[in-house]
């Protein structure tokens, strides 16, 4: 239908108008294309530059490598002083465990806030709402003080604590909003059949809320994997550092050996880049849903 109207409008246009539309087409497409290319250009540039040795790169920073070599990658990955493998393992562990707790807690608290009336329901609601408003960076210094006093700093599990806490508010509200839209008959039927609260929660409600839990998992994967400032103040031990923290060390370690820095960066970015380009549709959808509803 729309196409029909379109052809009709187009057919009555004069040559001058056609020219105008033609140049407009070129203009619009080139501006957007330029922007899109700028977004992945750094990735491409870093990739082919990482295949050069330092001397070749310094002589010509933009040219394609004439004899590509993976020696930078070999050096970066095999040298234990750079802690690349270790930091990736730390990031994977921290992210996975944080995700697990965020989704589990977000689901439980979100469900309880949405469905159960009890004393303190509103207080909890406001408490989590405040969590969305509190500028987390004002907690940078005090969290360091609290964690060190409590002996929780510099452990393999240290970062999971703030990541889960900061991920909770948005997750709670996403789940709460989602549950409110589910008909309560579902739980009533389960209760009549004699299902306990715990059973209803995990066997009946949990599968229904899967879409929103996936959204939460997507958002939190990126924010945990990329988080830097709390890792910076809470982790002092190099063998415990996460990827973004390890990256800041490259600068000092590799001095001005850019191809080496690039290969290290690309290695540590690889999991998230691959994940993004394979699941980009779902990821974009999830992130947008999280941003708008949250």
């Amino acid at each position, binding site marked *: 239908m*729309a196409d029909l*109207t*379109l052809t009709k409008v187009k057919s009555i246009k004069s040559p001058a108008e056609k020219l105008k539309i033609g140049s407009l087409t070129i203009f*619009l*497409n080139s*501006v*957007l*294309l330029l922007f*899109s290319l700028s*977004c*992945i250009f750094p990735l491409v*540039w870093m990739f082919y530059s990482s295949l050069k040795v330092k001397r070749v790169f*310094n002589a010509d*920073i933009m040219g394609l490598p004439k004899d590509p070599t993976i020696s930078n990658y070999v050096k970066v990955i095999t040298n234990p002083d750079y802690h690349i493998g270790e930091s990736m393992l730390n990031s994977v562990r921290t992210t996975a465990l944080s995700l697990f707790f965020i989704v589990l*807690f977000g689901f*439980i*608290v979100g469900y*309880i806030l949405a469905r159960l*009336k*009890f004393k303190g329901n509103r207080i909890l609601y406001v*408490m989590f709402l405040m*969590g969305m*408003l509190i*500028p*987390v*960076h*004002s*907690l*940078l*210094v*005090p*969290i*360091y*003080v*609290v964690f060190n006093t409590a002996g929780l700093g510099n452990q393999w599990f240290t970062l999971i*604590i703030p990541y*889960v*806490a900061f991920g*909770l508010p948005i997750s709670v509200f996403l789940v709460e909003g989602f549950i409110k839209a589910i008909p309560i008959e579902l739980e009533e039927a389960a*209760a009549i059949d004699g299902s306990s*609260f*715990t059973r*209803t929660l995990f066997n009946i409600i949990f599968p229904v809320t899967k879409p929103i839990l996936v959204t939460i998992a997507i958002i939190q994967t990126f924010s945990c*994997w990329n988080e*830097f*400032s709390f890792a910076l*103040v809470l982790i002092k031990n190099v063998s415990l550092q996460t990827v*973004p923290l390890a*990256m800041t060390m*490259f600068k000092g370690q590799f001095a001005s050996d850019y191809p080496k*820095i690039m290969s290290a*960066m690309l290695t540590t*970015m690889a999991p998230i880049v691959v994940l*993004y380009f394979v699941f980009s549709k779902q*990821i*974009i959808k999830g*992130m*947008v849903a999280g*941003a*708008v509803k949250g």
Partner: protein
Amino acid sequence: MLKSIKPKGRTIFLYLCIPVIWYVFSVFIPLITAMFYSLFEWKGGPNKSFIGITNYVALIKDSVFWISFSHNIYLVLLCIVGQVGIAFVFVLMINSRLVKLKGIHRTFGFFPSTVSAVSIGFIWMMIYDYKRGILNWFLTITGNSESVKVWLNEPSLVMLLVSIPLVWQFIGYYMVILLSAISSVDNEIFEVAELDGANAFQRAIYIVLPLIKNTILVCITLCVAGNMKAFDHIYTMTEGGPGTSSMVMAMYGYKISFAQMNMGYGSAISVGIFVLSLLVIGGMQKFLNILMKDKGVA
């Protein structure tokens, strides 16, 4: 609601206690701790001495803190115009029938926002680098070698230079959010308006803007909140320097607390960041609500 669904109070308590304790411990306890220690002279060692509001008096007189705050505001304003503004223009362009490869723009444009701020900072440091940077390379091949400089060492330019990566990183993010808002609007509205002779500018202001007003408000709020906590990019690229030319509040709090180990004053700065961020975010929302009503767009 059937009574049988409601579990015993004890069950609710058991389910809630771990998440709530976890959350309170990491958010509210530090907040209270900061307020407490901000009243002390404390250099990170075992000795603390109570000095009342002296830290706050110093904070109010601390020109570096207010410079940092003004840099945060600069970032907020620049990013509202740069991120949300440009994203809005791109959305109008992408929505045109003349544009091809919409899926590519979406996927590529969104990509930088999924990369860590540290990586983005590094990439741009390499772009700004004196000897091996793309910017200077470009200036040289286009015959402007006299404007080649050590970019991040220019006090008057550095704020702009550190904001560019920030703006660039999130244009695609806001573009995709706005696109999804527009896609829920019936396409016929735009077609009818076009047939009625509304030009692109009129369509943008009178049709698109009111329809996605709420989403734009969400974007602006995200943008304000995001830039009040700016830290990672700046830490990677300049650490606030040269001098204090690119200092932002979180960076200043970090430097005072961890480089000078002045934890008491650092705590006062943290409370300052907390109060100012809430004021700016709240004030911005009030302002936007008034603005929207005045225009009759509501």
